[in-house]
């Protein structure tokens, strides 16, 4: 196995086009390689490419094309969770430890929550955001949250909504020679309320049995728009679009929460595996959505 450590995206791209495997944090790749003793002919260590690191505010131009169609970035920065900051550009090589420690993350509490339950310290010190995405696990912790916030995945060739990168377990739409360079996290919408719920046997070091991420654009007690994303219940993460439609334009109340929960369960297409049965997963999608939305609804009960 040849080990390459290029300094530029172009050099890395060339090596990847030639059939080399990309290495970032290695926390998933090394498990697979070690277990199968199936080393690739060449490995491209991306960690020498400075341009792939760092967390910084999104430049105005970068925010021009929204990551998804239906939640617009805040025009005025008026919202109740955040400090009026704009969006963020997260380099593909940003580790989970760096992200967890980033003060700017306060404006995206669900992503901060995902960082807290992401494996454990040793893994977070190595695992990268780009790797979590490129690994294309439907159980990845950061991906449903990034999708709920309408994040875009930027490669050396294009930008696409985070939810569109994975096409199945361990499969992505990345072309030969294409690599993720950054993630663009738009400013949370006005009145954003967000959550991430990970159902797992342990808080640390567990793979999600079911996860649900949500970002609701609130106008007082009324949901203007919502984005709900389910993890671990299909070959890729899935948007619960019917549930989002149930919420849009309605007052957030217990009945709305129940209706959205039932609709969300219908979006799940889980399988039986060693972590849980499909029927359990489907049930838990409904319970988690109902729990999170009811919790939010209680905050508006007297308004």
């Amino acid at each position: 196995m040849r080990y390459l450590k290029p300094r530029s995206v172009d050099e890395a791209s060339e090596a990847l086009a030639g059939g080399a495997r990309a290495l970032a944090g290695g926390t998933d790749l090394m498990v697979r390689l070690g277990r199968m003793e199936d080393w690739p002919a060449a490995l491209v260590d991306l960690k020498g490419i400075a341009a792939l690191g760092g967390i910084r505010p999104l430049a105005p131009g970068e925010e021009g094309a929204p990551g998804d169609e239906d939640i617009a970035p805040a025009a005025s920065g008026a919202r109740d969770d955040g400090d009026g900051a704009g969006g963020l550009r997260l380099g593909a090589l940003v580790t989970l430890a760096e992200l967890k420690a980033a003060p700017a993350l306060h404006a995206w509490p669900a992503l901060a929550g995902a960082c807290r339950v992401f494996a454990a310290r040793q893994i977070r010190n190595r695992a990268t955001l780009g790797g979590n995405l490129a690994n294309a696990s439907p159980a990845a912790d950061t991906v449903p949250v990034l999708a709920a916030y309408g994040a875009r995945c930027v490669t050396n060739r294009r930008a696409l909504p985070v939810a569109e990168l994975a096409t199945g377990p361990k499969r992505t739409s990345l072309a030969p020679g294409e690599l993720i360079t950054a993630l663009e996290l738009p400013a949370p919408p006005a009145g954003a309320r967000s959550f991430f719920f990970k159902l797992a046997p342990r808080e640390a070091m567990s793979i999600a049995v079911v996860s649900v991420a949500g970002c609701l654009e609130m106008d007082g007690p009324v949901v203007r728009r919502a984005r709900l994303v389910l993890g671990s219940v299909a070959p890729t993460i899935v948007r619960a679009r019917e549930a989002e439609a149930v919420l849009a334009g309605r007052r957030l109340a217990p009945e709305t929460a129940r209706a959205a929960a039932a609709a969300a369960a219908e979006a799940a297409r889980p399988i039986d595996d060693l972590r849980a049965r499909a029927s359990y997963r489907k049930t838990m999608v409904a319970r988690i959505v109902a729990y999170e939305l009811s919790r939010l609804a209680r905050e508006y009960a007297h308004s």
Partner: protein
Amino acid sequence: MSADRPPAEVHHLDLSLTVNGAAVRRRVATTLRLLDFLRDELDLTGAKEVCAEGECGACTVLLDGRPVNSCLILAVECEGAEVVTVEGVDHPVQDALMRTHAVQCGYCFPGMVLSAMALVAEEPGLDRQAAREGLAGNVCRCTGYAKILDAVVLAAREAGGNGSGETGGGAGEAGDSGGAEAEP
């Protein structure tokens, strides 16, 4: 499918790094893991292999000051890096672990010591919950977590003063939670 592929050709690279403060140069296979490099090439057998997939933390070492699983890192990724194994450690957290009688079979301990050290350095004065979260990546098969957490809280409290260990009063509390305790 993948098993039908012929094994990749073996390549070697020159590697220079610092291990426990000493400069090391070796020619290594590109497929060699940091864990095997330390154990087999340098005879530093403190780091242990248990799960080989980053779950248990027995292979924990410090890489540029941060705890990592050496089973998930290639030696060649460590060019120019600073690696610390338990053999290179002389830290108050070890003393605290002894004072609280935290060691049982000891297999998880090299990793536990390095994680605890990094944790105490990062969060002096941390509380028990922070210790549990901080050590979540180190599994003790003897399940002796209560005393391990006692030791880390004790060491953190002593480090949290002015770094000179002026608080001698911590030892009396060491056994205060000796009952059954779930994993951190």
